[in-house]
Every structure is written in C-alpha cells, then in structure tokens.
C-alpha cells in the first residue's frame, strides 16, 4: 500500500516535469528575429536625446532611423514605474534595427516612478494626465506629449502589466490588447495567443477597442494625431518575469511588423 502510494506521487512529479520541458513557450517568431537583425538595406542610425532636460523627470528618448522610408512608431515603457516587463522590453527595443521608417522609444517614461519602483511618480498616475480637448495636466505629461506631437507617429504602443486577468478578476486588465478603432488589435491578440499554451486558457489575449475620449496617453495619440494606438497588458498572475518579458517583447515585435517597420518575411 505504502509503496503504491509513493509510486503514484512520484509518477505525477516525473510526468509533469517531462511534459513541462517538452512544451516550452515558442520563441522563434519571425517578427522577433527580424527585429534583432540589421536590415540588408544598410545600417540604421540611432540618436539618443534627453526629454525634459534639467528637470527631475529627465529621461532618454531613442530615435532609430531605418535606411528605407516608412511609418513612424513610438514605443513607451515605464509610464507606470513598477511595471518592469515594459521597461525591460522598451530598453531592448531601443537596440532593435527596423528595416523601414522611424522607431522612437522612451523606455522610462515616468523616470521618477521607475527609479522608485512605484506605479505613480510625484504627480500621480501619469496615464490619466492626457484629457480630451485640454493640455496635458502636468509638466511631465506636457514634456512627453511635446515629443509625441513632434514625431507625429503613425503607430503608438504603450507597454504595461496588470496583477490579474481581464474578465477573470474584477478591476484587473491583464492579458489584453486595448487599441484604437483603426488599429489591428484582434490580429495582435491572435499572434500573441500563439505563444500561450492551450493548457493556460485564461491567459489567452483579449482585444478590446478603446473609447478615445479617455485621458490615457495612447488614447490622446489616437484622438489628436490619428495614430494607430495600442496599450498592451500582460499579467503577473501565474506568469513569472521571464514569461511576461517574452510576451511583451512579442507584442512589440508584432506591432512593428504589422505596421511595416520590420521585414519579417525577409523580402519586400
């Protein structure tokens, strides 16, 4: 009896470890490899400049110009300072080499909040400071918005993470893609779901068209500049840091790919 019991428990452990190792998240995505390799049309040029120089909020903006003409995309990390996956991935995106267009990246948008590891900086939640028909509410929000207006992006992607899952946990918004009406949110969610194993069904991504009258940065960019805008949310619920970073990186690569900055097919 005792021996059978131990065998039963041991079998479960061995079985689940083997199954787990055999079903790793797929990482070999075309758009990701395209993002990492320099384009064949020549080297992109990178330029780093300070936003809000000389203030507490001073943060770095990276502008990467591809050798070919194309759309302008802006990627933001650290609008909420404790959402590390977005910051880590935005820093990586600043080293990517698009094949066409201009890639603009601000990895630590709310730098004070990032340094403190807190959601909000000194003036509250930065992602509520971009109301309709008014100037942004704080110096930081105005400084960020000035840069957005200057680049007049065709595409905006803001990287976030939530604690729970949208639709499962009230008031949480994880594993979701919020997007402006003209953006390709459904397509992005479907592409991300390729990386979510079938046996984690609640972690499948939901696409949700956003109401453009709100005070969020990506909503203002869609409303006032006509950008195709996305707000990406992964979750901390049952996902470790590595998985969150991987999903966030995939989201960034797919957005750039869908909007023509990357040449994922290897030809154009």
């Amino acid at each position, binding site marked *: 009896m005792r021996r059978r019991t131990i065998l039963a428990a041991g079998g479960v452990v061995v079985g*689940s470890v083997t199954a787990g190792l055999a079903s790793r998240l797929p990482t070999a995505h075309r758009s990701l490899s395209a993002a990492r390799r320099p384009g064949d049309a020549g080297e992109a040029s990178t330029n780093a400049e300070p936003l809000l120089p000389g203030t507490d909020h001073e943060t770095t903006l990276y502008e990467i110009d591809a050798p070919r003409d194309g759309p302008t995309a802006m990627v933001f990390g650290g609008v909420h300072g404790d959402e590390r996956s977005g910051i880590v991935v935005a820093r990586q995106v600043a080293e990517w080499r698009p094949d066409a267009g201009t890639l603009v990246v601000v990895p630590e948008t709310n730098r004070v909040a990032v340094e403190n590891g807190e959601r909000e900086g000194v003036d509250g939640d930065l992602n509520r400071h971009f109301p309709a028909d008014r100037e942004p509410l704080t110096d930081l929000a105005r400084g960020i918005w000035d840069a957005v207006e200057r680049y007049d992006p065709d595409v905006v992607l803001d990287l976030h993470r939530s604690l729970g899952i949208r639709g499962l946990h009230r008031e949480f918004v994880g594993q979701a893609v919020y997007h402006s009406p003209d953006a390709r949110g459904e397509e992005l969610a479907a592409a991300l779901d390729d990386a979510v194993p079938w046996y984690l069904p609640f972690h499948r991504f939901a696409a949700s068209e956003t109401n453009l009258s709100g005070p969020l940065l990506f909503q203002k960019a869609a409303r006032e500049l006509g950008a195709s805008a996305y707000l990406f949310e992964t979750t901390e619920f049952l996902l*470790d840091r590595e998985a969150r970073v991987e999903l966030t990186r995939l989201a960034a690569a797919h957005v750039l790919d869908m909007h023509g900055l990357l040449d994922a097919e290897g030809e154009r």
Partner: protein
Amino acid sequence: MNPSVEALRRIATSPATIGTYALLVVPFALGWFETQLFSPLALPGYLLFSIGTAIGNALAPRFEFWIYWAPFLVGCFGIASAVGAGYEWWCGRRSA
C-alpha cells in the same frame, strides 16, 4: 479502533487520494514556481486555482493572489478524498 475512524484513515492514505492530490497540486506548483514548467498535467490545478481567485476576487478584491494557496490546498484535499472514498468503496465491493 472505531470502524468509522479506521475508514477515514483508509480513505486519507488511499493511493487514489494521494495520487489525486499530487496530480492536482504538484504540476500546478511547478508552473507557479516557473512558468516554463507548466504542462497539460497542470490544467486541473490551474482551473481550480484560477476559478478560486476569480470567486475570491469578486467577493473581496483586496487580497493578493498568493493568499489563495490555502483554500486551494484544502479544496484539492477535499476533491482527492472524494476520489479516494469512491476508490475504497469500489475496492470493498469487488472483494466482498
């Protein structure tokens, strides 16, 4: 020994009880520890834990999710004991 205590002891130590408990908890715990270790075997534990947090979060939104390990472990033992009781009853009927 009291026959009903003996029956409960037999259910609690039944291979069916312990096997079910391990199947619900171990694969899920591995995935909790590291996402890469999630496997199809973790699905029952994953569903129980996720639905448990959804109910808990709807009733009392302020708890962090790790709190739900306690009711999860108790609930899994309840399910495992039911399976073990069924198994012992079936064994008893066969040998009768």
